[in-house]
């Protein structure tokens, strides 16, 4: 038990040091723009389908599950408001981040882990390239910049899914549905959700890179790095979300 607590503090310290090193290296030239763009494409464009399909299904399911209860209370006209606010504030960012934790954090963990055990990171170092800047900084920046865009994309498809179901089941037009949704949303819904999406992206890139960059114990370690990257990133996402909700509550009195 004492060893586990000790390990927890060591891990927290190492991760904090890794994050501090990221900021230090990110602000210092030379900058790896080409690699950053490549990573943005890899992480953003290649996650679109998964995020889109998940968002669409979440919108459908949320609407389908809420419908009977709202009908019972005669409040089915509140459906766009309820679904819109819950998707934009919470469900969209968290679900998208969790999907990206599974897809991107594990991918980064496995890729960097494999590069570590096959000495590719050492080869970069001896060729006079800073591997932290080239591999880690670009990946963390890419996830931080791409996640908010993926969240917006996922949110839109979730709302479309909900609107489609309302159109089929309740005869509500798409125009009326989206008008009601956008009337219900305010800055206090959009701003905190967007800000926390940046933090979610940062956490995903940071944890994936940290686990991969310090991968040990050969090829078995690559699997462990990928696996623990997903677990740790998911846990940290919930923690950051909890903190974000508390801070939002202080500023906007939810």
């Amino acid at each position, binding site marked *: 038990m004492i060893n586990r607590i000790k390990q927890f503090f060591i891990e927290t310290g190492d991760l904090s040091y890794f994050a501090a090193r990221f900021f230090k290296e990110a602000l210092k030239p*030379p900058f790896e723009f080409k690699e950053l763009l490549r990573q943005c494409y890899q992480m953003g464009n290649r996650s679109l389908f998964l995020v889109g399909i998940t968002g669409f299904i979440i919108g459908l399911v949320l609407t389908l599950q809420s419908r009977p209860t709202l009908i019972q209370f005669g409040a089915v006209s509140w459906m766009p408001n309820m679904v819109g606010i819950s998707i934009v504030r919470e469900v969209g960012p968290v679900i998208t981040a969790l999907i990206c934790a599974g897809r991107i954090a594990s991918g980064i963990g496995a890729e960097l882990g494999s590069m570590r055990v*096959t000495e590719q990171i050492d*080869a970069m*170092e001896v060729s006079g*390239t800073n591997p932290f800047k080239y591999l880690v900084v670009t990946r963390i920046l890419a996830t931080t910049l791409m996640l908010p865009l993926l969240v917006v994309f996922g949110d839109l498809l979730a709302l479309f899914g909900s609107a489609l179901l309302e159109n089929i089941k309740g005869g509500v037009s798409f125009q009326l549905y989206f008008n009601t949704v956008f009337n219900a949303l305010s800055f206090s819904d959009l701003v905190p959700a967007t800000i926390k999406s940046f933090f979610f992206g940062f956490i995903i890139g940071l944890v994936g890179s940290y686990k991969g960059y310090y991968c040990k114990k050969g090829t078995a370690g690559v699997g462990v790095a990928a696996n623990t990257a997903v677990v740790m990133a998911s846990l940290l996402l919930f923690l950051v979300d909890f903190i974000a909700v508390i801070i939002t509550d202080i500023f906007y009195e939810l």
Partner: protein
Amino acid sequence: MKLSEEKSDYGKSVIEIKDLRKSFGDNHVLNGFNLTLKEGGNLVIMGKSGSGKSVMIKCIVGLVAPDSGSVKILGKEINNLNRKAMDELRLDIGFLFQGSALYDSMTVRENLEFPMRRHKKKLGVGKDTKPLVLEALENVGLAHTIDLMPSELSGGMKRRVALARTLILKPKVILYDEPTSGLDPITSKEIIELMHNVQKRYGTSSLIITHDVDCARVISDRMILLVDGINYAEGTYAELSKSTDPKVEAFFKN
């Protein structure tokens, strides 16, 4: 055997290691290792697995920080160098990794271009690096692989491409970490010949870590036998192979 500096007719020292010590916890890997490699020399380090050979070679290029001792490369004490100075020094040091360490997400051409990307001015290379890449690949007889991915190459081809990548910066000294390990006898012979040709053509100094007695016989002009982290025996291949010391004898018989 005398644990003296390398006796040869060559010029000034390119690598000088004095009293190098490195431990990992209770595991004392290097216990006061000494080495001098003269300009144009071929020094072979032999030793059992776990005797500290790879740690020693990684201390030379700054991948592992020694606990104590001095490592001088081309007259510069590496313990006193900052990151920028170390990166500049690394331009003069080639490193051939045991597993080749080719970047598996890049083509052969991109692998060879990678070390040049931050040093084009210093190397006097223009935007078009293809002629230089082709020349390096021709030196190892693999010009036709320029657009292939590392996964499409055999083990021996990977090793040769890695050697071409090492040579593209025209280093003054090349460090070989087990250059023939994991290769069949015919491919091993080819790699040894290639190392020999490189030495003749570019006049580089070489430090070679190997288990391969044949490789040591062909390539070395001096040898050091590393046992328990210290220089156990030193001399030419002919001297060491005739040794009656049981530890040295056992090594050559095996």
